[in-house]
């Protein structure tokens, strides 16, 4: 009896200890977030001790590495947005079309073959896309557009679009797949073609899911680093011209990281201020995407 109760006591203690360890594992994710926000806030605070926030938001030049320093994040934001825009122009139509094709038209055998191949695109390291943008797509585009510079926004934008295409395609497909069959069958019974069912029933019903995918794709595009670091050049420029070299927020962080920047210098702090800007943008987009997805879940 006594041995049994002792064993039970010991077991209860082990159970408690294990549960605590497992809880700590889960809590680490919260600590990670606190770490990210803490590090970014701390260095950004130091940054704004030296640079006025008004200059940061309104100056049109970004030259923290020059003697004549300007800290206008606008020119990095312009580059980031331009490339994300080009990427979305590629990824959205192609992604949604291929989702419609795979969901509504393709025989299941074709679907089963093509889907994993498209997924392969999502698993390729981004540095590989960078190589491809700089050494294959740019020379190819230059044969059509002679005044395209060796570093530009167009090639990395297009390649980034292909990179995020699998995400747009598979998330849109999930959304289309969860449209109840009865809705589609109702439309078919009224004599609609597959095209009409796809455009008038499936896409509208799955719209918030598709939009959620699109917003998430924008977030991925503005956070993407290697393609733009390799193929877009490193010249911050307030422009919407896709043919000239420019720089994104992420590429700037890489540019500074490659050099030897001592802690505490203003150059060191700028990458955290730039990182903070990037973090806020992606966080807002991610939350917006989740909100859209939740909304659509409630409908059925």
């Amino acid at each position: 009896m006594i041995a049994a109760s002792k064993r039970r006591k010991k077991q209860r203690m082990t159970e408690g200890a294990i549960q605590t360890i497992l809880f700590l594992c889960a809590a680490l994710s919260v600590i990670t977030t606190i770490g990210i926000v803490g590090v970014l806030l701390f260095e950004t605070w130091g940054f704004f001790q030296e640079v006025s926030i008004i200059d940061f938001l309104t100056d049109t030049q970004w030259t923290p590495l020059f003697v004549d320093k300007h800290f206008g994040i606008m020119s990095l934001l312009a580059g980031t947005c331009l490339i994300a825009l080009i990427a979305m122009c590629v990824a959205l139509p192609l992604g949604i079309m291929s989702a419609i094709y795979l969901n509504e038209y393709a025989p299941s055998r074709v679907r089963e073959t093509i889907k994993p191949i498209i997924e392969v695109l999502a698993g390729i390291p981004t540095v590989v896309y960078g190589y491809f943008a700089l050494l294959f797509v740019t020379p190819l585009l230059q044969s059509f557009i002679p005044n395209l510079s060796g570093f530009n926004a167009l090639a990395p934008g297009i390649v980034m679009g292909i990179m995020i295409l699998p995400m747009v395609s598979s998330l849109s497909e999930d959304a289309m797949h969860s449209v109840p069959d009865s809705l589609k069958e109702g439309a078919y019974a009224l004599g609609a073609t597959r095209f009409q069912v796809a455009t008038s029933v499936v896409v509208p019903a799955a719209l918030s899911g598709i939009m959620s995918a699109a917003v998430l794709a924008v977030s991925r595009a503005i956070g993407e680093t290697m393609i733009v670091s390799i193929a877009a050049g490193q010249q911050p420029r307030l422009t919407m011209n896709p043919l000239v070299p420019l720089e994104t927020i992420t590429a700037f962080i890489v540019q500074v990281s490659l050099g030897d920047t001592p802690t505490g210098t203003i150059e060191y702090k700028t990458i955290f201020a730039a990182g903070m800007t990037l973090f806020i943008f992606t966080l807002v987009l991610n939350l917006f995407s989740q909100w859209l997805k939740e909304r659509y879940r409630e409908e059925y």
Partner: protein
Amino acid sequence: MTRLERNKLADKLFKVVAICATAVALVFLAALVIDLIYDGAGRIDWSFITSFPSRRPARAGIIAAIAGTFWLMGLTALFAFPIGVGAGIYLEEYAKKNTFTKIIEVNIANLAGVPSIIYGLLGLGIFVRTFRLDQSLLTGALTLTLLILPIIIITTREALRAVPSGLRQASYALGASQWQTTYSQVLPVAMPGILTGTILALSRAIGETAPLVAIGALTYIAFLPESVMDPFTALPIQIFNWVSRPQKGFAINAAAAIIVLLCITLVLNSIAIYLRHRFKKRMRW
């Protein structure tokens, strides 16, 4: 033309356009592979694999980068697997439905969407500057661990959720405790799914460049790392360095190194697919 004919024509036209849209992705992938093989396959030989980096492209090799990549992969797996699976088990099997659990869940979903370069800044601020681990393998592995933890947690939870609850109830009915049930009954069944997710996460980790650049990983290493505190380089870093140079010889080296990197990720992905296949077979109850 009647309206019916018009509708049918629109349907057919749309089908063609949609097939073309799908084909763009496939053509792109084919062009990428062919371009890489055309540029780099001829460069891969034994001396390329076993040489250290050099200023002359024809004599440079990737042994330091390969060693660094395998070190990173091993260390990251060592840290990320137990923590990720532990967190997954907690959230799926133990956690009560309260506000704190909800916070952890929302938090993990958001962490999965944080750009990888931000994790690099975290690693720079915490591991390099605060803990003074410098540009060591340990810093790299810890940074990559934080980066892939959300993926491992999410796939672990999915794998655990797929285990039928009857299994748990049967185990409880025999007097097993919660941990005994989880460890001896639920985990073995969920393990192939968990391993699949972990391997896919690792294959993502070894392809990551941005966070390693942000923590300041070196590109020129003329020795092999021997402990976790040694400085390192990795395949993606080496590729990035070579791509950034103007000489044609380095571009060829980059293509060759990319082929090696893709082969490693391909092997990892094949293992994951094999495990998933076995998982499907065993899941007949």
